[in-house]
């Protein structure tokens, strides 16, 4: 549908009036933005190497890398703020921003060594400050990922009871569901939600590696029942919010969806990460974000496959839980669509 056809559809729905606005340039697809981020990440290594070679004496001191990093981030902020300065400046500024953040991270870890929690916490705060300060879509996604990565490192190293993944999942759901409130909110909420979704799926997907290589403590895995409970609450609350706002009005259809939520939460007792991935998938579908939907579904599949290796239950218990949950989901898949569509037709 072109812009003129869109405007006509809105006029017909009495949502706008007057002549159609002039055509705007088409938006950049998400995969072109992802390419921009990837290229900036590659270039940032070379930028950092150059800065390191030119200022190695400065970098030798404790605050040196932090100062250099802050200068680089400041320069990048100038390049990425203030409207369209062209693709070259955008690309260069992104690379410089990533190099600057790497320098600040290195400087913080060096300055506070051998302590780890404080510099990582400062890094989280710094990245969140950059999310607010630099209004660039790709940069916001990368900064959120960096903040989540630093927070995850705290979790793995020293604070295994930190409910990070449930908090990230809840933050994702809340941010994504308000992202279309208006253009000003969408400018920060959409990239932040994308970054959080990627962070949630990366954390869930990394759980098998954490278990397999015993890297630190298991952050929220099979042995953390509080993590499962929090994720179940987040998933159920998110599903309820979506159903309330946009779901079927029919009571039977809502009961069916509720049954599916309960079945999935029960099954995810041994692999709580599945609920995080399911939350991402459901919200992404509701908000029409197909790339995030794909990420959520692939992560959910991975978590289900990982279930085989989870050590908390015998194979017989796993088989029974899979059969029960699978039977409920198949029943929902066969019966619920017949309730949802006619219910909407009646309402």
């Amino acid at each position, binding site marked *: *549908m072109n812009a003129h056809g869109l405007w006509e559809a809105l006029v017909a729905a009495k949502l*706008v009036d007057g002549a159609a606005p002039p055509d705007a340039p088409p938006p950049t697809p998400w995969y072109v933005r992802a390419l921009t981020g990837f290229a*900036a990440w590659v270039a940032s290594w070379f930028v950092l190497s150059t800065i390191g070679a030119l200022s190695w004496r400065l970098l030798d001191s404790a605050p040196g890398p932090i100062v250099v990093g802050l200068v680089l981030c400041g320069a990048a902020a100038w390049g990425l703020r203030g409207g369209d300065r062209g693709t070259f400046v955008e690309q260069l500024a992104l690379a410089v921003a990533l190099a600057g953040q790497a320098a600040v991270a290195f400087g913080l870890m060096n300055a506070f060594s051998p302590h780890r929690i404080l510099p990582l916490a400062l890094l989280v705060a710094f990245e969140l400050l950059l999310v607010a300060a630099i209004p660039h879509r790709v940069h916001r996604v990368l900064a959120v990922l960096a903040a989540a990565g630093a927070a995850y490192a705290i979790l793995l190293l020293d604070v295994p009871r930190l409910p990070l993944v449930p908090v990230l999942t809840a933050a994702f759901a809340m941010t994504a569901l308000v992202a279309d409130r208006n253009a000003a909110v969408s400018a920060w909420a959409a990239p932040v939600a994308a970054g959080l979704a990627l962070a949630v799926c990366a954390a869930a997907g990394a759980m098998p590696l954490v278990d397999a290589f015993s890297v630190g403590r298991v952050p929220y895995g099979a042995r953390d029942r509080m993590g499962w409970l929090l994720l179940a609450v987040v998933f159920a609350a998110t599903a309820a919010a979506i159903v309330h706002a946009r779901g079927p009005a029919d009571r039977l259809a809502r009961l069916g969806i509720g049954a599916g939520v309960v079945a999935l939460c029960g099954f995810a007792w041994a692999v709580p990460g599945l609920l995080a991935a399911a939350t991402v998938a459901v919200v992404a579908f509701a908000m029409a974000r197909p790339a995030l939907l794909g990420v959520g579904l692939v992560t959910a599949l991975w978590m289900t496959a990982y279930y085989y290796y989870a050590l908390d239950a015998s194979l017989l218990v796993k088989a029974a839980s899979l059969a029960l949950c699978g039977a409920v989901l198949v029943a929902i898949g066969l019966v619920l669509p017949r309730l949802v569509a006619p219910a909407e037709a009646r309402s």
Partner: protein
Amino acid sequence: MSHVRDTLLAWNASGRLRDADLAAALRATGVYPDAAAWARFLRLVGIVAGGAMLAAALVFFIAHNWSAMTRAERLLLVEATVLCAVVVAAWRGPGGAAGGTALGVACIALGALLALVGQSYQTGADTDELFSAWALAILPLVILGRQGALWLLWLAIVNGAAELWLVRILDGQNPLQRMLWTLLALNGAALVAAELAFRSGLRESPLWVVRTVAVASAVAATALGLGGSFGGGAWRAGMGLGWLAWLGAIAYVYRVLRVDVFVLAIALASAIAVVSVFLTVHVFVHAGFLAPLAIGALVIGMAWQGTAWLRRIVAEEAS
């Protein structure tokens, strides 16, 4: 859909569309899923996820009782799984979600059956022969199913068979180089087939299947290019030329014959990765402290021109 959303948000930012009407506008223009879309989503996820869980439950149950079962019981159980899955697919029709899921279960169970036969009767077959037999055995089901996901499963098994075969027969004779060439040829041929099927409008090859196979060929080609970046010699140069040939073919097909910005973006990412590594290996270590600056500038330049080019193509396609 993202184009529609961005247009509506732009109108909201300019004041032509009020905040209070934005959600209604997103629904009216089909950005948000309607009841029919939700019904399809719930149906697909319920049946596919539920079917996969039931299949996994069976596998776990078999694994739990494995040691207590006789050879005949094990074989009968897996054969019954294959048969039931095929019956369900025939009953529901192979083209739908339920039938397609059942065919997928049948394909995976056939692999388990072949592995079990090989293990039970000590046939002496190597793993690559098992994968080859698996690919051959499921081919009729994949053809009957006419679903892209089944063809991707088959392609993954064929890739596995090729890799394992090469590792076995080329023990100590440049297996990595020949494996990368083989994988590039295999996935390149798959991409050609997927593209031709897509253009013919065959339901086996929707756009997402073509793009998935394109990613697979890009991984193989990029690995070939990266392999050719290290060291010297004619065979390394050959790997680099192979990657360049793939890059040229992708650029021609997806810019001239059928525009697909996603595939072009993948090719550009491959170019950035290979060029960066090549320059790092051959220039960085010899050229002093300004080398990283030059390489970084080149990468930024490639990305700058590349994304500008892709955006021009997007604008051309939109107009």
